[in-house]
């Protein structure tokens, strides 16, 4: 049906256009936000002659371009950004781009892995809980998911690390890049991914359960029953499909949030990801690093949102035509 493809094309172009606009606004907000936070990147500066004089600091400030008005600074930063240049760190001897390139893969891998684990846990248990609303299976699943949501993830993480150090003594802490050794990489990522997956899975279970229960009360469920479907067939054949639309939003946004929001777990398991980089840069008032990190995390958020919106018409045929 070419008309359907054309409608989808129009839908996609519209969504892409609004995404570009959001990206520009994001870069401006990130830039201004960083400058509103108190702190001076040159406050802790000293060289081989000890603490430098005020004139020398002023010269450095001019050299780094920090004396110019903010619109000029923004224009030069955003201009370089369009060429893929994030600038150099003010406090460390590296370029921001190289740091992000090194750290982002760990964060993305951790987020994707924990999302996959969460889905693998949540879909079967969520469907069972919804199908057996009020029965003992539902009660057990709900109690477990309540516990997993209530428990802070670093507590579970520390418990795993401590228990391991006294018993199995597996190497759980640290990170190896995937390119270097894929097997070691996955082995070390598994524990933090599991820790991040539990509360996520619990949240998804509750969400899926509520959706299934609601779906089974919709009028078409009576038609399905009249066709001779069992409750299990109704859930697996229809309610899951109908619940995927709201579920995809929750999964996508949570996945994006994980990329920048795993600071605590990165610390527990000593993973050099985006969260650690961001915290270090904020403490040093390292403007280009904070700007770069926040911008990249924002881009991932927006990109996930776009992916979800482009997937909607595939899951739900009613969107994209109106």
């Amino acid at each position: 049906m070419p008309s359907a493809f054309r409608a989808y094309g129009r839908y996609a172009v519209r969504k892409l256009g609004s995404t570009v606009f959001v990206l520009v606004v994001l870069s401006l907000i990130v830039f201004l936000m960083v400058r509103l936070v108190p702190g001076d990147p040159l406050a802790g500066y000293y060289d081989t002659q000890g603490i430098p004089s005020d004139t020398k600091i002023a010269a450095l400030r001019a050299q780094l371009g920090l004396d110019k008005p903010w619109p000029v600074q923004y224009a030069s930063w955003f201009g370089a950004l369009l060429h893929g240049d994030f600038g150099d760190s003010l406090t460390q001897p590296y370029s921001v781009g190289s740091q992000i390139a090194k750290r982002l893969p760990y964060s993305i891998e951790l987020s994707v892995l924990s999302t996959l684990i969460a889905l693998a846990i949540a879909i079967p248990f969520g469907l069972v809980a919804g199908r057996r609303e009020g029965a003992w299976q539902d009660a057990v699943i709900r109690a477990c998911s309540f516990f997993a949501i209530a428990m802070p993830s670093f507590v579970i993480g520390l418990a795993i690390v401590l228990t391991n150090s006294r018993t199995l003594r597996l190497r759980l802490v640290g990170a190896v890049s995937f390119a270097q050794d894929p097997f070691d990489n996955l082995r070390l990522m598994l524990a933090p991914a599991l820790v991040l997956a539990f509360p996520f899975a619990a949240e998804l279970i509750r969400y899926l359960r509520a959706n299934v229960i609601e779906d089974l009360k919709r009028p078409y469920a009576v038609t399905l029953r009249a066709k001779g479907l069992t409750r299990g067939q109704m859930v697996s054949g229809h309610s899951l499909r109908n619940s995927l639309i709201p579920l995809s939003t929750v999964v996508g946004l949570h996945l994006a949030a994980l990329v920048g929001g795993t600071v605590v777990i990165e610390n527990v398991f000593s993973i050099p990801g985006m969260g650690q980089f961001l915290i270090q840069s904020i403490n040093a008032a390292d403007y280009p690093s904070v700007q770069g990190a926040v911008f990249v995390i924002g881009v991932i958020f927006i990109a996930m949102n776009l992916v979800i919106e482009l997937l909607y018409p595939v899951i739900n045929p009613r969107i994209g035509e109106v």
Partner: protein
Amino acid sequence: MSDRHDVVSASGLNIAYTGAGGFALRDIDFTIRAGEIHGIVGESGSGKSTLGLSLLGLLPENARLSASVFSIAGHDMAAAHEHDWIPIRRGVGSMVFQEPSSALDPTLPVGRQIEESLKLAGWPRDQRRARAIQILDRVHIPEPERRADMYPHQLSGGQRQRVCIAMALAPRPTFLIADEPTSALDVTVQHEILDLFREIRRVTDIGIAFISHDLAVVSQIADRVTVLYRGGLVQHGTVHDVLANHPEPYTQALLRAVPSVRDRPKSPFDIGQGGAWSSVRPHETDDGTKEVSHG
């Protein structure tokens, strides 16, 4: 259509909802014969939908059913559980509902939904698609191959109801319950769907229970009619007997409620003596208690 045996037969049927107090249906005798349309008429709350749902075991969980005879396609279902009903629903009896817009899964093409019914009724995989398209054609959906791949929202209300009817007929059931199948449709579409029901009766041997609040609709297409009022049986018999020759007082009241040009009020504020609903009430005695006749 040689033999007109009963495909559904109930006698002394009582249905009560626990906690509700009182019966939804009491002492009902009802049959559907192969190849006939049996109209079930009554106002809302008369128990006509309860009767329809009970014939496929679709009553809510708090419903309690008892009957001296409750035979569905030759099976005694008086004490049946949910799992006993599943083989009946898979291809023996089907149902068409009032709202075609909410009766279909919005995320699946309609052809797939018909194929699902066929699969449940045990049709082999390689015949399902062809049968789905054939039955869409039989209910006069134009371009059935193309329409089979469409989603419910891409079809009009009348076409959706045709899809629901096609889905119900696809596995060649013995009987069909149609619960107000035309009430949610425009008047012109209503007529087309009624024509379709007439055609189904003419070319198949299926027994149809046609539930409606509209006596005019039922009188047009039914062979026999059962009139219910507040869970009780008012009258049953052939359409001709019930409507033309010997209508009971309540049936007469229902007949009077059918609007006609002649006694239309002159203005919306002209509600006549006894209030707006006086014409549909069964005759009320002077002390306000209601009398309902049993046929």
